[in-house]
């Protein structure tokens, strides 16, 4: 059997017909075509089988206790967001102050090593995350899915 309709009928209409989502005129056109086309009747039968399988599938759902153990408000999310903002502001001020002290030449060798070491580590971590995100953006399976 061919893998497409011999009459080149638009197959998507079969799904629309099966779901009862076509206009009256298109519906009539599909019905007439189905009477003559064995391939499209087979497609329709396969859609029916698939739908019967999916609609009869049942899923385990979590018990109420599993939900109750979890936070019911967004308070923890707000606290986490605020915490991150404060931490970032603090890190920027700290790094700025340390660099300023180095610029003034008042820092000894140990302080220079601590500042450069810390800032280099942060820069490397940031670069690592940035590279991963760029790679993820290029291979993101959802990138073509409309928002």
């Amino acid at each position, binding site marked *: 059997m061919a893998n497409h309709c011999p009459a080149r009928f638009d197959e998507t209409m079969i799904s629309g017909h099966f779901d009862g989502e076509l206009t009256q005129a298109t519906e009539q056109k599909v019905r007439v075509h189905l009477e003559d086309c064995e391939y499209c009747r087979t497609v329709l039968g396969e859609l029916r089988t698939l739908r019967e399988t*999916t609609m009869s599938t049942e899923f385990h759902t979590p018990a109420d206790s599993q939900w109750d153990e979890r936070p019911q408000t967004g308070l923890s999310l707000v606290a986490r967001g605020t915490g991150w903002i404060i931490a970032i502001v603090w890190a920027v001020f700290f790094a700025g102050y340390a660099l300023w002290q180095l610029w003034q030449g008042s820092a000894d060798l140990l302080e220079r090593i601590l500042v450069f070491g810390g800032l280099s580590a942060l820069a490397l971590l940031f670069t690592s995350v940035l590279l991963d995100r760029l790679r993820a953006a290029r291979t993101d399976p959802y990138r073509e899915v409309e928002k």
Partner: protein
Amino acid sequence: MTGPRSAPVPVAVPPPSEAQTVILAQQGEADALDKLARSCRQQAYVFALQLIGHPDDALDVAQDAMVRFFRSLERFDPSRPVRPWLLRIVRNLVRDRARRLRVRRTESLEPANDDALRFEPRDDAPDPEAQATRREQQALVWKCLQELNPRYREVLVLRDYQDLSYADIATTLKIPRGTVMSRLHRARRLLQEEVRKHRSGTGEARDG
């Protein structure tokens, strides 16, 4: 003289409609909030499970979805149906999670199994052979669904598992109705192809 009065006939009070429940919840009515939470969280969980395939991850997503749902409830128009809006929140969270997973590779990426499915007899006198065949078919379709590209998986889940109309799917995914029909048909054909491949693979293995 009049006879004894009969007791007033109890009038059945219809349950509040979804819109009424939403309005009461927006006003902070505890019962309405509870009712909305109970009905929506299971829907959110099942939809997340159908998209992700892992019960623990689905529970995390559903919980986050409920937080977002109630955070934006005040802005929701009660005249509109809740379900497409709720499912849209879940779908966006699943999409964000998929992006995060591609960055944080430490999290599990193992394939979904059929532990999430509930196999229970649906009638009093089930034919064991028919039941077994149906279970096998459900598990196979479930497995193949997880292998579909997300853009096809989500439209298929919304129609063939969640039973949403094309209009509601279009609202949920923010795509035109015509695109829903064409993408859905493509998704169904890809799923059938995947099922066929698995069947022939299993058959070959059994024969070999």
